[in-house]
């Protein structure tokens, strides 16, 4: 690890000023940054510890009725928060399917969304072929965004609240990461020194609480990144799907929303045919980027499975194996 300076500013203003210095990096839980520093992929000259900044460690309702998760709230605390379990249970399931209890205790909301691709830790930016993207990739980069949380957030139309020298701004999470031609990894829409201060969930997204699931396939039962994952949420009305939200993880450099599939579901009665049609649309344009053609069919099947599980209803408590499509006992639905 390179030598660096360390500071722990007491106010947001101080943090923003320090964060704008050349070579500075914000340190939250450190579970991703330290990992990258240990292998020499990241070598910041200055670590700006933002974990004790005031006002970033609470989950609270905004004046507009949205739910604001401070950037420093730990992943385990988000997953256990009563308002998350009641309004956005898919977030709890996604978080609890990620990493380990120890890591979730340290990892923050902001750090999770901003974590860099796992491929960055391996050889160059390619990593293991099996893990690579099948959607939206370029010749320069086929790495996938590693976060489970971000996939569920994208499906729920979450916004990111960002502080900079000019004040606060908001960016939809789905637009936050881009992959310019020639870039070796996805680029977050953050200017130098900008600090992510919160993740905001629109009140309207709580309408899918009764039919929302995060489903994740991995190489082992627990404590593994997603090979493919799906966040599926349905707004049901009189036995039909009024609107649908669908995002895929493990397939692209960012959480992959699927407008065409969502449109095909709207107004339909839930059932295997419409789910299969939506799954085909969700993977439209998919192409292998390495030894990973299997992921396309796997993702299709997982979309259909996730939609079926969502239609059956959100279980009253997160299943014993969160997000596992192999968990036989999904429990009784919470909302009927």
């Amino acid at each position, binding site marked *: *690890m390179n*030598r*660096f*300076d*360390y500071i*722990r500013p007491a106010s947001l203003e101080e943090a923003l000023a320090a964060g704008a210095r050349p070579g500075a990096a914000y*340190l939250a*839980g*450190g*579970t991703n940054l*330290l*990992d990258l520093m*240990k292998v020499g992929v990241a070598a910041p000259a200055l*670590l700006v*510890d933002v*974990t004790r900044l005031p006002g970033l460690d609470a989950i609270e309702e905004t004046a507009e009725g949205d739910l604001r998760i401070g950037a420093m709230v730990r992943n*385990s605390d988000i997953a*256990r928060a009563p308002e998350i379990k009641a309004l956005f249970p898919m977030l709890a399931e996604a978080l609890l399917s990620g*990493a*380990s*209890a*120890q*890591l979730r*205790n*340290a990892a923050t909301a902001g750090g999770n969304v901003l974590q860099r691709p796992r491929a960055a830790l391996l050889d160059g930016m390619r990593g293991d072929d099996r893990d690579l993207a099948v959607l939206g990739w370029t010749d320069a980069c086929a790495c996938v965004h590693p976060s489970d949380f971000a996939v569920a957030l994208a499906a729920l139309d979450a916004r990111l609240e960002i502080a900079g020298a000019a004040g606060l701004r908001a960016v939809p999470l789905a637009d936050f990461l881009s992959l310019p031609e020639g870039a070796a990894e996805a680029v977050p829409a953050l200017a130098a020194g900008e600090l992510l201060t919160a993740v905001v969930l629109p009140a309207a997204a709580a309408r899918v609480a009764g039919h929302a699931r995060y489903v994740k396939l991995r190489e082992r*039962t*627990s*404590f593994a990144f997603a090979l493919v994952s799906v966040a599926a949420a349905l707004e049901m009305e009189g036995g039909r799907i009024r609107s649908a939200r669908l995002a895929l993880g493990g397939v692209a450099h960012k959480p992959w929303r699927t407008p065409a599939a969502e449109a095909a579901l709207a107004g339909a009665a839930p059932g295997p045919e419409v789910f299969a049609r939506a799954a085909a649309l969700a993977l439209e344009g998919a192409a292998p980027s390495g030894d990973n053609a299997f992921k396309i069919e796997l993702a299709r099947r997982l979309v259909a499975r996730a939609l079926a599980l969502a239609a059956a209803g959100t279980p009253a*408590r997160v299943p*014993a*194996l*969160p997000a596992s499509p192999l968990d036989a006992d999904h429990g009784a639905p919470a909302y009927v």
Partner: protein
Amino acid sequence: MTHTVNLVLNGERRAIALDDPRVTLLDLLRERLDLTGTKKGCDRGQCGACTVIVDGRRVNACMSLAVTLDGAEVTTIEGLAQNGELHPVQAAFIEHDGLQCGYCTPGQIMSAVALIAGGEAADIGDDPERLREAMSGNICRCGAHRGIIEAVLDARTRMADAKKEQAA
């Protein structure tokens, strides 16, 4: 620049001078404070051998910079036994053969102690599947997981019973 880190380490107040901010909590414990009970397996957050309890929560000491912990309360495996008596989780690991080589054991035990003491235990109940999932951040290369899960379930029941008795 030297940083001073104040810790309550296994119940004892310590002011530690750090000449290098790169030192992880794991290296501080093992290399500088001679508390070698906490083990280093992967040094990357992947195995759980380094699990310690910081402010009541289990974390990977290898992924935590010591300099960030000023004011924290840290408990390691050395801080569990009281007056020469093993912690109930330690005793249960021995009784249930929850170990073979023992390398992962301090991390397993710290993880279980935090889990039982913290909010997670209520979610888990008596369900071994939920407990296995909650313990998945501690990997045992010897495959002693079966004994480990039995030990944790048993220790949890006994600690709850002891609490009830005390209250009565």
